């Protein structure tokens, strides 16, 4: 027993002594993770999804006007509504967990490249199930890109005017999206917000883990799918323009920028004037490295976005022009990954893997 007391007392003494030492890694600022989750839910995610719901509702009414009166002016209004909604989707799609995951909206709204032959085939045959797995690349925003913009606005108008099936298909695409986004927003408003806020901790199924994981996945999806693959990063520098997102509208740079901007906002925990507690605040609560890391992350976001501002034609045109700045832009996007995927989770000490496995 004596020996035991000795052990215990010395453990205590040692621990008290040692904690007086100065150490570089220390979250000194009290950080409230419950408030972080609450802010993400109330100030970022729900407003973002609600905005997407609103944009899709506008899209739907623009379509109704166009359907009632097939004119070029109405088509242009519809195109604009599509653009606005698609841009909003770049923000809302980041939160691919909970209801968004249940309804699979990330895939249903944004799978590209669109299989245009499949779309045409569906329209011609008139028999299809939009929700079928095989139709994943014949629906959503990318399919509308094809239907609304292929060849020229005039040509798209002619085809929609002369083919009632085509118009119906377009309407059904919008209806499907509306049903799904309504269900997602409804789920967040009725129960999931509570569930999300209550799911604390850092396990692989915690809200914090969902947020960090999906935030990273979305960033990497932008890096790889929206940009890397088309410019040839995975194909020995040989461009693959057939993988460009929204090729018919020539809208891909805007989507990339919107997506990177959304990523930056989510990092900060901000959304359209809402200033929430975000990853940034959590990072900054770690004194020394937190400051360094945050400076690195924010300046990288700035330089990446500035870089993309310098491209003033379409991605396809820049690829055809063999603009060497494309790979410079890619390197900039890539340089952020280690900050947000390695350093940030290392500070948060969360399980970034799916699997709930054992450690030792």
């Amino acid at each position, binding site marked *: 027993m004596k020996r035991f007391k000795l052990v215990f007392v010395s453990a205590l003494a040692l621990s008290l002594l040692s904690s007086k030492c100065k150490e570089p890694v220390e979250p000194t600022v009290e950080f409230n993770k419950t408030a972080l989750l609450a802010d993400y839910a109330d100030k970022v995610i729900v407003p973002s999804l609600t905005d997407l719901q609103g944009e899709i509702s506008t899209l739907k009414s623009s379509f109704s006007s166009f359907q009632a009166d097939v004119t070029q002016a109405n088509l242009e209004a519809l195109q604009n509504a599509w653009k606005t909604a698609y841009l909003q989707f770049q923000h809302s799609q980041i939160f691919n967990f909970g209801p968004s995951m249940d309804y699979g909206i990330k895939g249903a709204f944004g799978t590209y490249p669109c299989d245009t032959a499949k779309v045409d085939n569906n329209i011609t045959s008139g028999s299809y199930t939009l929700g079928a797995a095989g139709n994943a690349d014949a629906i959503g925003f990318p399919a509308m890109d094809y239907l609304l913009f292929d060849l020229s606005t005039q040509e798209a108008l002619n085809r929609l005017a002369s083919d009632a099936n085509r118009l119906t298909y377009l309407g059904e695409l919008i209806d499907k999206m509306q049903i799904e986004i309504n269900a997602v927003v409804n789920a967040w408003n009725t129960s999931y917000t509570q569930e999300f806020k209550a799911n604390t901790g*850092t396990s692989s199924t915690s809200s914090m883990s969902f947020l960090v994981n999906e935030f990273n996945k979305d960033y990497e999806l932008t890096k790889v799918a929206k940009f890397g693959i088309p410019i040839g990063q995975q194909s020995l520098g040989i461009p693959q323009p057939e993988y460009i997102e929204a090729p018919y509208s020539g809208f891909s740079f805007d989507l990339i920028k919107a997506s990177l901007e959304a990523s930056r906002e989510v990092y900060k925990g901000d959304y359209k004037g809402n200033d929430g507690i975000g990853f940034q605040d959590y990072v900054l609560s770690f004194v020394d490295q937190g400051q360094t890391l945050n400076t690195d992350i924010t300046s990288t976001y700035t330089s990446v976005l500035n870089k993309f501002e310098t491209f003033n034609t379409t991605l396809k045109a820049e690829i055809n022009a063999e603009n060497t700045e494309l790979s410079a832009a890619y390197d900039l996007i890539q340089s952020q990954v280690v900050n947000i995927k390695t350093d940030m989770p290392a500070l948060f*000490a969360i399980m*970034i893997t799916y699997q709930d496995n054992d450690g030792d």
Partner: protein
Amino acid sequence: MYRGVSIAPLVVFRIIFGALMLFGAVRFLSKGWVFDNYILPDFHFTYLGFDWVEKLPGNWMYLPFILMIIASIGMILGAFYRINATLLFLSFSYIELIDKTYYLNHYYFVSLMLLLLIFIPAHRRFSLDLKIFKLQQWDEVPAIYRNIICFLLGLVYFFAGIAKIEYDWLVLAQPLKLWLDKFHHLPLIGGILANDYVAYFFAYFGLIYDTTIPFLLLGKKTRPYAYFFVISFHIITWLLFPIGVFPWVMICSTLIFFPASFHLKLLQKLEAWLKVKTQKGMVVTKVNQLYKYFILVFVVVQLLLPFRYLLYPGNLFWNEEGFRFSWRVMLMHKEGLATFYIEDRNTGKQIEIDNSDYLTESQEKQMATQADFLIQYGHHLYDQFKDTLLVYGQHQVHLVDPIVRADVKVSLNGRLNQQFVSKKYNFADLKYDLKHRTFIEEFKP
């Protein structure tokens, strides 16, 4: 060493360990890990020298788990004990050898313990074997059998303890601080747990606990207190960290330190309850000569293996050379990002690899921070791309002997990332062996 001591502790240990193995196998199956870890991946990270170990095709991977269930029941009942102990050792070790992604110190411990159990006559009392083979009951067996179990358990603690004598653990209380910080949100205890003092207390308490507990368990007077600490220590770690069955393995296994009389009473109660007729048993004091050599080798290897890191230069936690099989438990938190590139020798143009095309998330996580994984993955990628005709639209490229490069950055214990491997090396040329890996960039503390 060879004097006769009661067989009771061995018999109880056999039953407990069999039950743990049964529980572990059922738990692994029920979590769906057989599919996730062994059926789903296309590629596995084998151990050096064991690259001939291959997984069984498809659902056949369930077979070794089913065998484990059968064998552990056999072990509990003491039926065909040696066959079942061998089967358990082989099936468990086989599963572990398939992929070091899932390496855990306690899995290694279980493998070693099963190896020891094969040769321990734990079926000579309270077993079906006595009936099946009409064996005579043994009452006393050479002490070496029990001693070697105590040795292995003590070894795990002691080496886990001295492994904690290092800068990050003692001075920074890392990675404990990072890990405990996640409890901040808990009401009442959250603030306490995420407090720095607590991290330091755990760090030093863990160090003292690990290094002294084997000796305290051996001492007659200290044992009850020591066991109290065994239980509380492991339950606390079980509550705080995702460490699976390890706490239960240790809580149950350390019962072996209790006096023979304790085990005998337990056994007699069991025998009375199940109405097992006991006979006056034999006293055995002889041990096979080969077994003595086996134990000698086992002990020497186990004492030396954890020190093999001394043969390597550089930071042990960064390089992880001589890291495994050394009871370095819960000592670090690493995050890494490994980007591989396949380069065409003729043009210098590259393909950036999407790791998820080849690895599962668990595999990628391990691969991104450990040099031996990087080499194996680099070789695997080389095999995927060598002598390959790639078709991109109208373009065709024939890769004959591509260069495999990697840009790897690692964060250790909450530090900002540092370059781990730079793009200047061709992984196709790097050898997977025991030599010091010079391609790892030096760690800057």
